[in-house]
């Protein structure tokens, strides 16, 4: 037997290995563009390894410096939230190494080589020296600082794969110095490679998971929570990473007399100002259109007659909504419509009942007249001004006529850009459009429409960003054009020769490309949608019939419920038979001595009628002077029988005595 000494295992954190703090700070500087600060701080924190002198900070000094760090953190938080709102949380994250710098300096230049928990937590500080040693101890915060630097660096959000490698290397360095010596370095290395390999797969999986879950919830939202277009603001997907996926949900149906030769654009609204991925308008007022006398029809254009008509069926989530209409709309008619309004930006808003509604569009040769351009329609945000100046100069747009400009720009986008619904590279929010123009040269319709609109503005042509749908998918078995969520499109309007004209620079492959993502269940979903449309989407006059039909469907669960009740009722009865409870009530006063007398009188004279009081009965049986004597007796009986107070035995005796005296 061998005796070994009492060698307790320390549960405290070891100091960070030499150079690791500098390495983690360099990763932070590289990601957050604070490289200069990172080098300075890193050298400051690693310098104590080369010098021998140390400062003897008292507990009070450390507490005060910790409090100062807390105050700095508080000030930074307030400042960042005021300037960046909730997005500022990532900014705060980015600045964490600055916040912890004081404590790290105290630790590395102090004699204690650690920070007491009481300095970090005021609650522990208040406990004083009486606090349990389990919570009041000195710990080296070097290794936590390394991890905090890495998490701060992650807020830089760039060079995804390189960042992963950098983090893995820093953590591997940390683990190498902490590894258990009884295993070989090869075992340690294999374990680490194993973990890092799966971590790489996991981080890719996390990204995929977010994309898929977002698509899923977006689809759900579109399915159940779809709202009408906002005439004042629309957010684009410019800057959204991964694949843009819109659902196959049918938004509306268009029935035409003859099939369309080219896709027809149904616009919803136009916007004039672009900033950070959002197009918006100043406050938009809608003008109410007067109803044509004697008809359910509203005239939106100047033409007297409709050249052709289209029947549209759309599902309304709210009673008032902006509806997609073609540019050359002339009239709008339908029993479902209550009111129609239009705005200067070409939006048509209707008021109708919720659910599937039908209306007829009358079309003419002339487009709906939108309001003339305003200075807003020439505005380019300062963030993008230089970029578009550069493109406009390169294309030599400044010296061209508007028609030439339109042609050049159309060709420029056609020849140099291609359509893509994927965005995998991450940039700062405002950089996406710049990268689209100069680097990636690929994007979806929102990129094309936005970039074209701003480029034309730079060339002096007023433009508006327009959103709506492209009508192009004809369903033979339904006999209508169906417009799905994925047919949503963005293009622009430019103002030349005193009129607004449509322009779409998005490559025409966008619709087939988006259709590639259709689900296998699409035909089945279409069938359900059609059935629902057919059962609920008919005229107002047939509403009563619809509700009756719907009530009939309710009979199925009702029948099931009744069947279940019938089944369970039998079981309840069986249970009742098993546990029959006999309830008995003791009614006080039933032993009154008067009852035998009543029985006797009933036998000799006449019996009491149902509901007849004793007094009424006596009065009927003995209509002479005996009535009063019996009345006294009955009063005594009533007192014994019904009055809860009084000595019952005494009352009973009184009745008996009265009866005795009577006999």
């Amino acid at each position, binding site marked *: 037997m061998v005796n070994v000494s009492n060698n307790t295992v320390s549960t405290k954190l070891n100091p960070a290995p030499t150079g690791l703090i500098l390495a983690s700070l360099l990763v932070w500087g590289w990601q957050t563009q604070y490289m200069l600060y990172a080098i300075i701080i890193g050298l400051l924190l690693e310098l104590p390894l080369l010098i021998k002198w140390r400062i003897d900070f008292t507990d009070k000094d450390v507490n005060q410096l910790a409090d100062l760090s807390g105050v700095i953190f508080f000030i930074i938080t307030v400042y960042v939230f005021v300037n960046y709102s909730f997005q500022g949380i990532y900014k705060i994250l980015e600045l964490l190494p600055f916040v912890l710098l004081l404590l790290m300096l105290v630790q590395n230049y102090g004699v204690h080589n650690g920070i007491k928990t009481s300095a970090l937590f005021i609650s522990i500080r208040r406990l004083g020296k009486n606090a349990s040693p389990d919570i009041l101890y000195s710990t080296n915060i070097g290794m936590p600082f390394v991890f905090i630097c890495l998490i701060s660096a992650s807020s830089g959000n760039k060079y*995804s794969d390189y960042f992963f490698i950098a983090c893995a290397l820093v953590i591997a360095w940390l683990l190498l110095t902490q590894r258990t010596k009884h295993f070989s370095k090869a075992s340690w290395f294999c374990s680490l490679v194993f973990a890092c390999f799966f971590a790489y797969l996991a981080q890719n999986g996390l990204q995929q998971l*977010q994309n898929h879950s977002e698509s899923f919830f977006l689809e759900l939202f579109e399915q159940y929570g779809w709202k009408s277009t906002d005439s004042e603001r629309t957010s684009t997907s410019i800057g959204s990473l991964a694949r843009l996926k819109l659902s196959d949900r049918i938004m509306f149906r268009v029935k035409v007399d003859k099939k369309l030769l080219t896709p027809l654009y149904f616009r919803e609204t136009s916007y004039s100002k672009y900033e950070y991925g959002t197009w918006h308008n100043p406050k938009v007022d809608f003008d109410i259109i007067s109803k044509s006398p004697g008809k359910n029809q509203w005239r939106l254009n100047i033409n007297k007659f409709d050249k052709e008509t289209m029947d549209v069926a759309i599902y309304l989530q709210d009673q008032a909504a902006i509806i997609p209409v073609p540019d050359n709309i002339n009239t709008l008619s339908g029993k479902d419509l209550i009111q129609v309004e239009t705005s200067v930006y070409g939006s048509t808003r209707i008021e109708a009942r919720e659910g599937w509604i039908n209306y007829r569009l009358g079309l003419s040769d002339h487009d709906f007249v939108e309001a003339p351009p305003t200075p807003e329609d020439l505005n380019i945000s300062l963030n993008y001004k230089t970029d578009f100046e550069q493109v406009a100069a390169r294309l030599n747009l400044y010296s061209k006529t508007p028609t030439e400009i339109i042609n050049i720009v159309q060709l420029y986008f056609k020849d140099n850009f291609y359509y893509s619904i994927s965005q995998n590279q991450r940039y700062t929010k405002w950089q996406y459009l710049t990268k689209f123009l100069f680097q990636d040269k690929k994007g979806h319709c929102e990129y094309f429409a936005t970039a074209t609109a701003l480029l034309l503005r730079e060339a002096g042509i007023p433009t508006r960003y327009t959103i709506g749908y492209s009508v192009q998918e004809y369903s033979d078995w339904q006999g209508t054009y169906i417009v799905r969520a994925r047919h949503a499109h963005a293009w622009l309007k430019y103002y030349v020769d005193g009129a607004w004209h449509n322009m779409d620079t998005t490559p025409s492959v966008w619709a087939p490309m988006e259709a590639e993502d259709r689900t296998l269940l699409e035909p089945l979903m279409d069938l359900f949608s059609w059935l629902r449309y057919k059962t609920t989407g008919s005229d107002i006059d047939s509403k009563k019939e619809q509700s009756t039909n719907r009530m009939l469907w309710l009979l199925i669960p009702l029948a099931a419920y009744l069947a279940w009740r019938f089944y369970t009722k039998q079981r309840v009865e069986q249970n009742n038979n098993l546990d029959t409870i006999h309830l008995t009530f003791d009614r006080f006063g039933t032993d009154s001595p008067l009852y035998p007398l009543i029985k006797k009188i009933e036998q000799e004279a006449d019996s009491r009628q149902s509901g007849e009081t004793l007094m009424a009965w006596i009065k009927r049986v003995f209509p002479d002077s005996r009535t009063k004597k019996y009345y006294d007796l009955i009063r005594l009986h009533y007192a014994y029988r019904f009055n809860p107070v009084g000595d019952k035995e005494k009352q009973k005796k009184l009745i008996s005595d009265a009866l005795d005296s009577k006999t």
Partner: protein
Amino acid sequence: MLRKLVFANFKLVYRFSQWMRQRFTSTGTLILLITPFAGVFGFDTRNTLSFQIFSITSLLLITAMFFSLFFRGRFSITRKLPQYGSVGIPLNYSCVIRNENKTSKRGLVLIDELKNQFPSLDHFSKTKYPLDKKSNRIDRFIGYPRLVNVMQKLRGGSIKPIAVDYIAEQSELETTIQLTPLRRGYLYFDKTRLAQAEPLGLFQAQKILNNKDSLLILPRLYKTPRLNLQNKRTYQHGGVNNASTVGDSQEFISLRDYHPGDPIRSIHWRSFAKLNKPIVKEYQDEYFTRYGLILDTFLNNEPEFIFEDAVSIAASFMTAQKEQDALLDLIFVGNNTYRFTSGRGLAGDENILEVLACVEPVYKSNIDQVEMMIQQCSRECSAFICILLDLDESRLKLIKALSILNIPTKFLLLRDLTSTDSAKAIQENDVHVIHHVNLQQELDALW
């Protein structure tokens, strides 16, 4: 209702925290804490790359846990405990580890555990945590630090893990472990764990061996002055049984007829044979000093350390040097009323200390029962020492009852009372107030 709900979850939280402490190394714990932090900031994978740190740290932990599954081995452990320990005084004991494997083992950690006893809600609610007033409101309301404190007390001590760097195959190794008892009474050893960290050094695989044992921890003792009360010797019924070696025993007076109840050994057999009827020997009545030590065990709102001080003072008096022929009665009330006598060949110091090691506070007033017991033994006792935890109405009644007996009594009060009524009562009854901070000095100044 909320308190019950919170308390119901304490067990889960406490077990999880214990599991974490035992299973993760310090680096592993750091990574475990960093993981949710990185996860929260990396929740939106488009805003930060923190999800990559989350992936690395979580996969490191999973890998560490996975490789810990490969720890195999057969061991046996024998604990060698001392007979007694004392509160607050570190004691060493040893563990003999036998490696029954055919290969040697390296990098083991021996974790010896005392049994975790979870308090009842009632016990938890009544226990006072000395640092409660200094704790923050959340801690005070939720009460988790208090629970940890109660659990530590119930467990009775803390044992640090011991590193066992190498143990050869088929051999034994003895390690010394230090335990600092935190409370008196029996400490129950439960399990012994042999842990080994996996290659990454984050998570410890463990071999758990059931190794139950117990150790009696005696109360803390103080140096007490020799008992010096203005006492007198009193008649002690029971005579020779209580006087085997010293005192007035064996003083034969005469022979007399046998009375029922006389011990058989008192029969004078020769006279019995001669007279043909039982004759017994009669001895001189016995007179010697007998002290009564009354221990107040009723703990109402007083902090628990006051009770511990009372037990320690009682233990100190019981084991203090006293007159050779003196008896010392310890009187207190637990579930029943107890009276233990030491001295003159009766119970030894170790027996009394064992009794005092296991005395528990009573939360329901028991002063009346003590009073009854005092009435019973007042004829035998020459003097009393009464250790009080408070000076409320019932205790004042006890003081009055003792004063009526006209027996010299020393009252010790372990709590400083500031009210004017209390100050008056202390002065009137000559009560000595002993403070927790200056306990030894104030004991020295008693006589």
